């Protein structure tokens, strides 16, 4: 059992090593077989592990294995150890399972690419890094996975490296997440100074004894860790890299947005919940950031025209919901939303990739249209994903998770009406932009000719994910409807149950309000983009609306702000000092000596008369000195 644990990350790693070292010499079929095969094998092992975990949970609540001692210096010890408890298990399952589907899809999607092996090598490494992140037993190993994820996102966003814009997008993703990572690392240093260990189980045990709730030091630690999470999970103000990350191939987007990377922050906060609980202030900050993010990104998603950009902003917004849930103390609800979101967001990106590929790399939704009949399978699967994103009640997985988040945003101990209203507004916005996306792309008239339809390798993952986007929510029902709470039962082995504030009456009423918000979002979308398109036309004539659209379109001008605040000053200063001002000091010394040399060398003119005069002056000088002294 314990040894098989290490196979889960080892298999993708083996895939990476084989493909990166030998990949260019292998035929494409074999490359795909290895690339997708290792992840599928890891997924099967993970599922088997999950089943045995559910049937007979280990006494300690976790499977763990120490592979080797990594570093041991003075009082600092850390090992290459894996530790899988219920929370990790959920993440391991999603990463390997969704990851495997994405890999299978990629075998078809990337088949014409000349760097086939490099693609699968990077994807395998991505999965490996993410697995290490969630299986790590100490924060240093977690950091290894964390940075590995950053590296792989960089490699894959910039996969088509010959276009400068892609490379810049990749760099941006790395830079911005690195800012968060560095903050997180400082948090680790602080944590180590306080507790003398970076082992996660030890921290969970020691922290409540060591820290007093709300003390400045625990607040600083939690804030620093939160900053790390915000970088990777693209939360305001570190969200700007994610929309640009669309430069990578569509399966990469699916992997980044659904199974890996952006959920790392959610995992970190959930994993370190002991520390966060000790700092109510940071909990509130987490919730507020989540709420802000879900609103800001949602607004931007409403006006995007690139199909993948819409989805990217929707990811930021949905991860915002997860942070909101974590922040109000509804731990399992946050993780549950991650769980359902993984399926429908992977589905949406893969389906969008299929659309883009069939339309000859067209990204603009207004150049699409009428695909409902041309690509029926993609349409129906996309519809399932979109419905889940919009959280249509009772028939989609997204509803079950989002309903919980909304409810706890109001009723949990850390919740309040304001957070609930923002979340509600977000639900409306989500339903609106999802409807807009569906109507513009799949209804209406055909604007671009549909080329080759996706093959079976690509459609099979779509169908599986579509089924899960509908059904995955049934394992956890709102408690006023059915008493099925399989998911929260599992993760609450690790995460504390939500503490509700004084009972808020009539949960059903608030659910109804949420449902109304969702449907009105759908209706407004329908009204504006199908029924009466002249309203939009009239807005295009209104300066205020045009400005607002532009403001949302550019992501609330964050990029421009960062350009002015950081990028330009940095480039300016570095360019100014390119020649190294300190070198001027030494050059000055050199020229001083040269000048002195010029002055003194006058005395060496080769004429005997000058020398005799010099000698005489010297003699007189010495004699004079002797007389005086």
């Amino acid at each position, binding site marked *: 059992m314990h040894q098989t644990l290490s196979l889960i990350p080892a298999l993708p790693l083996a895939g990476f090593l084989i493909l990166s070292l030998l990949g260019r010499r292998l035929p494409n079929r074999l490359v795909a077989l290895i690339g997708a095969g290792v992840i599928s094998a890891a997924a099967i092992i993970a599922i088997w592990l999950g089943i045995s975990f559910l049937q007979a949970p280990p006494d300690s609540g976790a499977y763990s294995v120490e592979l080797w001692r990594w570093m041991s210096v003075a009082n600092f010890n850390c090992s290459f150890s894996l530790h899988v408890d219920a929370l990790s298990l959920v993440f391991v399952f999603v990463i390997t399972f969704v990851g495997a589907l994405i890999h299978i899809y990629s075998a078809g999607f990337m088949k014409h690419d000349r760097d086939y092996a490099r693609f699968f090598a990077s994807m395998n490494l991505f999965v490996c890094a993410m697995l290490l992140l969630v299986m790590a037993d100490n924060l240093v190993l977690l950091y290894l996975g964390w940075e590995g994820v950053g590296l792989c996102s960089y490699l894959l966003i910039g996969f088509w490296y010959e*276009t400068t814009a892609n490379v810049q997008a990749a760099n941006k993703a790395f830079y911005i997440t690195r800012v968060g990572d560095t903050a997180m690392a400082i948090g680790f240093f602080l944590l180590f100074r306080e507790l003398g260990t970076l082992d996660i189980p030890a921290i969970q045990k020691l922290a409540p004894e060591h820290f007093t709730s709300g003390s400045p030091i625990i607040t600083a630690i939690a804030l620093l860790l939160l900053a790390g999470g915000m970088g990777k999970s693209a939360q305001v103000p570190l969200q700007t890299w994610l929309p640009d990350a669309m430069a990578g191939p569509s399966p990469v987007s699916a992997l980044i947005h659904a199974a890996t990377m952006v959920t790392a922050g959610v995992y970190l906060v959930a994993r370190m919940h002991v520390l966060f609980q000790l700092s109510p202030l940071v909990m509130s900050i987490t919730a507020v950031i989540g709420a802000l993010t879900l609103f800001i990104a949602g607004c931007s998603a409403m006006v995007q025209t690139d199909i993948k950009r819409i989805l990217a902003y929707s990811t930021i917004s949905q991860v915002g919901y997860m942070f909101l849930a974590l922040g109000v103390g509804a731990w399992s609800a946050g993780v549950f939303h991650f769980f359902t979101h993984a399926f429908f967001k992977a589905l949406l990106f893969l389906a969008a990739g299929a659309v883009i590929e069939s339309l000859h790399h067209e990204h603009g939704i207004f150049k699409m249209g009428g695909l409902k009949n041309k690509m029926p399978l993609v349409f129906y699967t996309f519809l399932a994903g979109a419905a889940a994103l919009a959280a249509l009640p009772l028939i989609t997985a997204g509803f079950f998770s989002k309903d919980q988040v909304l409810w706890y945003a109001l009723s949990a101990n850390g919740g309040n009406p304001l957070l609930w209203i923002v979340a509600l507004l977000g639900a409306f916005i989500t339903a609106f932009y999802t409807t807009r996306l569906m109507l513009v792309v799949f209804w209406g008239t055909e604007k671009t000719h549909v080329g080759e339809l996706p093959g079976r390798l690509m459609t099979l993952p779509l169908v599986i994910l579509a089924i899960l986007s509908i059904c995955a929510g049934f394992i956890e029902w709102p408690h006023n409807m059915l008493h099925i709470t399989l998911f929260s039962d599992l993760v609450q082995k690790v995460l504390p149950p939500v503490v509700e504030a004084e009972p808020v009456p009539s949960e059903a009423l608030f659910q109804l309000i949420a449902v109304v918000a969702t449907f009105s979002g759908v209706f407004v979308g329908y009204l504006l983009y199908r029924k009466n398109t002249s309203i939009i036309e009239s807005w295009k004539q209104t300066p205020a609306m045009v400005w607002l659209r532009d403001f949302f379109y550019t992501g609330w001008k964050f990029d421009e702000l960062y350009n002015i605040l950081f990028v330009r000053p940095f480039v300016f200063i570095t360019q100014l000092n390119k020649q190294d001002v300190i070198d001027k000091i030494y050059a000055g010394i050199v020229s001083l000596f040269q000048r002195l040399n010029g002055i003194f060398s006058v005395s060496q003119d080769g004429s005997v008369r000058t020398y005799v005069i010099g000698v005489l002056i010297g003699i007189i000088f010495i004699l004079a000195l002797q007389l005086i002294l």
Partner: protein
Amino acid sequence: MILIWMIIILLAGGILCWLLSKSNSPAIKWIALLAVLIDLVLLLNIWLQHGQGLTANTGNWMIQYQSAWIPSFGISFHVAMDGLSLILVMLTFFLGTLAVLCSWKEIEKRAGFYYFNLLWTLAGITGVFVALDLFLFYFFWEVMLVPMYLLILIWGDKNRRYAAYKFFIFTQAGGLLMLISILALYFIHGAQSGTYTYDYLSLLGTRIDPSVAKWIMMGFMIAFVIKLPMVPFHNWLPDAHSEAPTAGSLILAGLLLKTGAYGIIRFVLPLFQQYAADIAWWAMLFGVIGVIYGAMMAFAQTDLKRLIAYTSVSHMGFVLTGIFAFREIAMQGVIMQIITHGISTGALFVLAGMIKERLHTRDISQMGGLWSYMPAMGGAAMLFTMASLGLPALGNFIAEFLILLGTFQANPTFTVLASTGLVFSALYSLRLMQKVFLGPPNAPHKVNDISGREFIILAALSISIVLLGLFPQAVLDVAGKVISNKLYVIR
């Protein structure tokens, strides 16, 4: 005695190369390679013999040899090896082997004299790492300087004269200050105890008047921080690195800089512990300045080798900060940084040399998209830029993480400032990748990917940087015995 043999093999090999230089036969490079390889094997043997014993209590010095040299002045040929020396000499022979291999095709002109200088520099560096007599130490310090000066002056690039002079004058200025300090120490100790000796172990116990001690220490310090280099004494480095031949840059970055760090650890801290603690705050400050300043300079450069040279300034800033934190964790990080920086930056210089051989330029604005032509070299470059920006699983991460973790216990503010180096290192590293290997392909003519010989060099470097990242404990154990000594750590 084995230590002496190692140095003699290098010196003799060098002389042999020079003698054969008239014939200009291919045997020259084989002799050079053989000389370093024999040393490498001898040293591996020592490691295997004594490596285990290190964890047991056998004392710090595993090998010691002493014989009189100029007894009337108290100068003896005292060499010894402890864990710290072992690691550094290992690095010397490892990079030395690769240095010979990188020169294989690059050096056509006056090959015999070239390999003479190369081997003598290596001999000098080895001597520096094992000498336990201060006069001997100074002697080796000079032995490594002059041949390196010649390497730059004769086989360097266009601006080689300027770079060689600058390198020589900077290092020599520091060297002279150190000589004065050594003499001062010699006389003070002699006057006190009656025995005039340059022996390190005897001098350790010298009691010096505080007002004088500070100045004597500064003599050593300045010599070492020029070598390290510390901002603002770093200006020799970008010129020397960028003008030197590939092997020269490799040895400069990989080894010569490390003599500075070694000197501080071996001499400044044990001889002047109290006074070293007094300047700790300033030393850490300058370390942090170096981290940030070097990174910002690296970001602006357009000359590939100059860019890499400035990253060294940044990375060595971590070393200075880490040493003066006086914490065991940080000091272990420093040792790791010395090794891993040698490997990763050395590798980057090797890559820069390979690129220059193909494109005949160091200007990154004339490069771009090289990955398309040379995926294998691109992969290697990606690995080492990632090492340079401190990606975990590679050796440099262990180093910088331990340094920061340890330094945080001593001075959180400086640690936070130094941590920004992690962000800056990402900035210059990714810019480097983007300008050289990514972006639209921009090569004047078809270039070939790496050859078999180049593959061996890069593979050796790659494997070692990964192993150091995953199994650093092997190195930590070897150095641990020395580092946990009370001389280096203030508890």
